[in-house]
């Protein structure tokens, strides 16, 4: 009996420790999620200006063949380059499972991968897929870091046998819901950044205001200007997608850790009840023994 209560006490202690850890991870994830959200919101004015800057070109490109940039060329056949954005660490619920399931939709022969996040690389290695590069981005990665990823994709596309560059990432719907989704970043077909923005006021969509003047002087010239603006646009898109994937990761981890903490608390409750039952039972037997001994003596 005594051994049994000691066992239960030990288990309660260890579950308590686990609960403490998961609770701490939950808090950390919550604050990181907030940071990722804020970063996405802070970059929104930049996004709006960028698509506004590109807007005059959307008509010009249709009129002037000369302006059409290689990044905009639509090809009939070629391989897909998939930029897979997974997480570095586990313990974030079904996030990685969901995103990696999407990988199977791309045929191994016609797909090459570029990967952000260790979990993605590990999976692709196991699945024996072609991985061209993997990038490691810190939690507080900068635009410059994302640029390296984007530049790699652009260079690979420029080699010619790639039809399109697709980003496979986890779309942030809200704290509880994250959906795996894909977005084609190259060829560039629309200059709108217009997608559901991260943050809370998604109804305030990126309505692009027509610029007041339409005739600009372009320095050094139209072709070069667009030529450097377009890769930059792709860089920004990829930067934003990674930010969004990060927010998804952290919110998913937060929810998973909250569930773990709740479960641990429930387990502690059940174990405590069990422990008390056993303790009570042993006290009752002891009293019974004393009482019966006294009855015999009297």
């Amino acid at each position, binding site marked *: 009996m005594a051994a049994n209560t000691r066992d239960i006490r030990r288990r309660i202690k260890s579950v308590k420790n686990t609960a403490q850890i998961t609770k701490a991870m939950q808090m950390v994830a919550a604050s990181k999620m907030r940071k990722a959200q804020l970063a996405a919101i802070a*970059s929104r004015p*930049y996004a709006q200006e960028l698509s506004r*800057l590109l807007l005059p070109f959307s008509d010009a490109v249709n009129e002037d063949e000369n302006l059409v940039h290689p990044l905009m060329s639509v090809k009939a056949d070629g391989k897909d380059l998939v930029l897979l954005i997974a997480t570095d660490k586990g313990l974030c619920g079904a996030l990685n499972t969901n995103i990696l399931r999407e990988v199977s939709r791309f045929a191994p022969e016609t797909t090459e991968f570029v990967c952000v996040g260790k979990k993605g690389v590990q999976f692709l290695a196991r699945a024996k897929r072609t991985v061209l590069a993997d990038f490691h981005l810190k939690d507080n990665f*900068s635009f410059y870091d994302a640029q390296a990823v984007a*530049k790699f994709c652009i*260079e690979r596309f420029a080699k010619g046998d790639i039809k399109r560059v697709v980003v496979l990432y986890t779309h942030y719907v809200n704290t509880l819901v994250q959906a795996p989704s894909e977005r084609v970043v190259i060829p560039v077909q629309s200059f709108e950044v217009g997608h559901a923005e991260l943050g809370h006021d998604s109804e305030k969509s990126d309505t692009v205001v027509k610029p007041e003047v339409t005739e*600009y002087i372009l*320095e*050094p010239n139209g072709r070069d200007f667009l030529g450097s*603006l377009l890769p930059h646009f792709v860089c920004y898109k990829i930067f934003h997608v990674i930010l969004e994937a990060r927010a998804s990761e952290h919110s998913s981890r937060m929810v998973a850790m909250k569930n773990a903490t709740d479960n641990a608390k429930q387990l502690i409750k059940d174990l405590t009840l069990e422990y008390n039952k056993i303790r009570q039972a042993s006290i009752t037997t002891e009293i019974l023994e004393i009482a019966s001994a006294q009855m015999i003596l009297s």
Partner: protein
Amino acid sequence: MPTLKLEIFTPEAVAYRDDVEMVLIPAELGDMGVYPMHVPLMTRIMPGELIVTKDGESVHLAIGEGFAEITQTHVRVLVDMAIEERYIDEKAAEEAVARAQQEIREALMGNQEVAAAQIALLKSLAQLKVRRRQYSSSLK
């Protein structure tokens, strides 16, 4: 006095937003002073020093690569870095310069990477230039 609305955007934040009298932009084809009623123009920007004049005083910013859109009433600058002189970390910039120079010297990398290192070098140098300018003027 007519003013220009100057807005400087970076992917991380809106770095500057104010009505100003004049702005000096390090454009690709040379430094460019912009007053109100400028002809509409778009240009690429090289890493360097951007000077804003407002109420007779000037603010210096170190900026990175990017683009500028100029209209008669607005100047919108999109760059990957924009730091006002008082926020520049001189030590960090010096280290960045040393690191970039080291990378270029070793030149084990491909052309693309050398170009990236050169841009990084220019950006750090721009920070130092803006920062040191303030020092020399405060010593006088």
